[in-house]
């Protein structure tokens, strides 16, 4: 029997043999992965390792949204991009890398900025969303869109020598706004471009995002929902803490479900967070 009754081709069996050998993952887990679709928003520091591992593991349809181009000062952490792609769209570069390690999956390029006018349409094509962006308004917009479309959201962040990871909107768990109903003051919203990041820190968080997405897609293991991982690279300390559940008062996912797709499309996330959706240019004032 070449497919163990699951219709896997001999090449597929050979490629994923180490997954198939895992009793707790096995043919069922791999079949689930092959049938799943995952969207990674952002092909930067977090998106690079997340995309590499999601492509390698056999996610059937892998989408990438980004509107940036590859720059030399990305290369210290965005390991999916090669120097040959400097000046070219990150989506194109990342998709080429994904295809070069796994030609048997479908990689979909969304070479555009994610905004309220296209987010619903793009997200609706995928089972799971991975937030690999670098700014506060995008994080609110992505979470709200996931709530509206009932998609689980794997959210990672990294800055300096620290990282954070959790899964939102998964099986009755909290959304981003349940935790952060009010945006922080803009002075607290540093991003990588402003204040630096040790390249391997988003590497670690991005890999952990891939793992959480794989667990949800394959229906294996306990996703990090209702819990948050806090990583401190300098001291090599990791905490996994228990966080609040869904809030009945949440303005987006709470009891009074008044937040509509129309409202989403009209919502001004930049004004809400007082922070821009597009990356600011680097200022190096050492």
């Amino acid at each position: 029997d070449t497919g163990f009754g699951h219709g896997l081709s001999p090449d597929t069996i050979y490629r994923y043999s180490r997954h198939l050998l895992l009793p707790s993952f096995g043919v069922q887990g791999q079949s689930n992965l092959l049938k799943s679709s995952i969207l990674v928003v952002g092909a930067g520091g977090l998106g690079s390792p997340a995309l590499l591992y999601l492509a390698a593991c056999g996610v059937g349809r892998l989408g990438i949204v980004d509107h940036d181009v590859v720059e030399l000062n990305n290369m210290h952490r965005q390991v999916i991009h090669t120097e040959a792609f400097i000046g070219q769209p990150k989506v194109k570069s990342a998709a080429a890398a994904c295809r070069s390690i796994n030609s048997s999956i479908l990689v979909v390029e969304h070479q555009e900025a994610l905004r309220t006018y296209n987010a619903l349409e793009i997200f609706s094509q995928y089972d799971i969303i991975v937030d690999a962006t670098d700014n506060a308004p995008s994080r609110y917009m992505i979470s709200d869109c996931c709530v509206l479309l009932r998609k689980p959201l794997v959210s990672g962040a990294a800055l300096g020598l620290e990282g954070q990871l959790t899964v939102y909107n998964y099986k009755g768990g909290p959304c981003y706004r349940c935790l952060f109903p009010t945006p922080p003051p803009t002075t607290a919203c540093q991003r990588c471009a402003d204040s630096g990041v040790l390249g391997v820190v988003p590497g670690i968080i991005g890999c952990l995002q891939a793992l959480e997405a794989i667990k949800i897609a394959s229906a294996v293991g306990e996703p990090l929902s209702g819990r948050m991982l806090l990583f401190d690279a300098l001291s090599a300390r990791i905490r996994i803490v228990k966080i609040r559940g869904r809030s009945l008062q949440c303005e987006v996912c709470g009891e009074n479900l008044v937040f509509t797709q129309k409202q989403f499309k009209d919502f001004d996330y930049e004004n809400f967070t007082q922070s821009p959706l597009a990356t600011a240019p680097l200022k190096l004032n050492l």
Partner: protein
Amino acid sequence: MQLTLEFGGGLELLSNSVKIHNVNVELKNGAEKLTMKDLLAWVRTNLIKERPEMFMKGDSVRPGVLVLVNDCDWELSGQLDTTLEEKDVVVFISTLHGG
């Protein structure tokens, strides 16, 4: 009361870049217990060296700061009314947006 206070996600910059503080917080005269509200006031007075508005708003923490008492979100233990006990570990961490 012996407590361990930790600051992360950039909040450590407000207290001389020190992340872990082993502190001894005295109960106020006549008080029988120490709550998170009391602790925040103590932290504001004793540890925050600059830009207190980056740590607090009103008598609570500013938006975007998670508070964890013994690795558990303070929303689950009563937020400002949470009663602290000897050797508790309280973490203040600012949410990150970078990537």
